[in-house]
């Protein structure tokens, strides 16, 4: 296994981070969890992540603003958006700007894992998510 995927997870719901962190760690990601968008943006300024997963609707700063920061600082980083509810026009707008993918609440951990696997492949560092899943089930 090559070097782990660096993932930043931002959602103002604490449970999201609490549950997704172990889920992503299992597929070989190194995960940093944030609830506050400002703190997350500050961290992005310090470190290049492979993947940033952010909620769209947050107080203070929304996901698109976070995306802009990431894009300016690290053009290579893939950004995945979590939306409260699917709004086609908003999704289309963001996708046009270069957001990697969307995931709508409520979702299963596997849904996000799949998208992260896709992003890893796009980054040229594929992870064997399906075998990981099997392994988990067997275990």
């Amino acid at each position, binding site marked *: 296994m090559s070097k782990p995927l660096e993932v930043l997870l931002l959602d103002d*719901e604490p449970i999201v981070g609490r549950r*997704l962190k172990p889920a992503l760690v299992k597929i070989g990601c190194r995960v940093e969890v944030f609830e506050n968008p400002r703190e997350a943006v500050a961290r992005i300024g310090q470190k290049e992540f492979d993947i940033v997963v952010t909620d769209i609707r947050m107080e203070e700063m929304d996901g698109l603003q976070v995306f802009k920061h990431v894009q300016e600082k690290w053009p290579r980083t893939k950004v995945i958006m979590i939306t409260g509810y699917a709004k086609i026009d908003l999704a289309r707008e963001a996708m046009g700007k270069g957001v990697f993918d969307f995931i709508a609440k409520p979702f299963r951990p596997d849904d996000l894992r799949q998208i992260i696997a896709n992003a890893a492949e796009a980054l040229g560092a594929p992870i064997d998510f399906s075998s990981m899943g099997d392994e988990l089930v067997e275990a």
Partner: protein
Amino acid sequence: MDMHITDIKNPEINHENDPENMSLHERPSISIRAKVAISFSLFFILSFTVTGWSYWILTKLETKIDFLEIADNYMAEIQQARRFEKNYLLYSTDLEEALEHLKTADAILKQKNEQIEKILEKEHFKTMVTYMSKYHNQLVLLRSAKNDKEKELIVPMLRQFGSQMVSFAGEFVEKEQISAKRMFLLAKRVPLYFMSVLFVLMSFVLMFLARQLLLTLNRFMEYTKRIGEGDFSPILPARKYKDEFTKLAEAFNHMIKELDHKHNVLLESHKLRAIGTLVAGVAHELNNPLNNTLLTASMLTEDFHTLSEEEKMEMVNDVINETERAQRVVKNLLDFAREGETAIAPLEIGKIVEDSTRLVVNQVKFAKVNLELNCETNLPRIHGDEQKLKQVFVNLILNAVDVLTPGGQIRIHVQKDQTPGYVLVTVKDNGPGIPEHIQGRIFDPFFTTKAQSKGTGLGLSVSQGIIKKLGGYIHLTSNPDKGTIFTVSLPTTESASEIMSK
């Protein structure tokens, strides 16, 4: 629909038995028709009396004139008799002529005795006849007198009776002439008096009827104004009796009932629209606890065998808490959306406004505006329908959200009104304000400044209807560039009962 068609076809629409018309109906009936009929009969009786009197006085005059004619003839005869008597005494002419005239006079009296008696009365008539017969006797004596000596004895008596006879008749004629003149004058004047009395009476009746009609019409104009403003309380009796206008009032009450019904339908449709708006926000809010539950449950199954007891417990508790969170979100909306009869109850205004802000919290979040709620403590309770009041405040806040750009401010204050017995809720935004020329129409139904797909134009109209029904008022102050303040004033439970009974 069939009902309405028959209603229109049937001119005798009967709303007497509608419950809201009971008080109108339970009064003695004095119809306008009866009033007009009474006035006309009064005029007729008056005219009839005056005409009858005129007829009577003219008849009386006629007899007087007849009498005067007779009296004139009689006077002429007796005067003629006396002239011949003088001639006889002076020139010794024939006395027969005098007797002849006296006979004619007597004939007149006898012939017209009834008429004369009527005017002179029996007593005077007798005196007159006596005087004449005495004079006649003296004349006869004079005629039969043998010599001058005898004549001289008779002459003084003759003269006395003669002058008595003439003066008595003359007096009477004069008296009757005066009385006839007076009667003429009266007959001439009475129509004039009658005319003036009639004029006064007619103006009075006219004024009375017109006043009654106009006052009632004005009252009905007031009613239409009141109804137009959304006050759908039935018309109560304003007078002690009922008439044709009562039928109109009954029809009005029927219309008010229908309008109230329609208004409630409108209210419901507006509420549905508000619910539609809120649901979008609630769906988002609901997705968070759902997502948390799904993620937690998924990870619990996935790692069931590797997790510690403690971790498992924490996750199960998370599931419970998040489910309860979802329940709260749904409950708040359901409380608002639940269809129910109007239930007036003493309410805490602060809690209602707070619940309303919670309902729109997502819309406020989406629009990235700030909402600030400031509530005085220990406010008196108000009388109202919880759901409907929430509908008003949700509507006011959503309106404010619609006009604000991100970063805008909504400030809500709940406080005591300066008017005792009222509490005040102000919803203030720092949006672009409402142009003065449309401020007057802002509460009109179907008036909207929003795009057709966004607004129905019912919100403020419905809100005004709700607040007015509770005895409160809602108004706005708006300055371009300084924003808009909507003020809702509601009576507290202490004052509400007084207002409602008005």
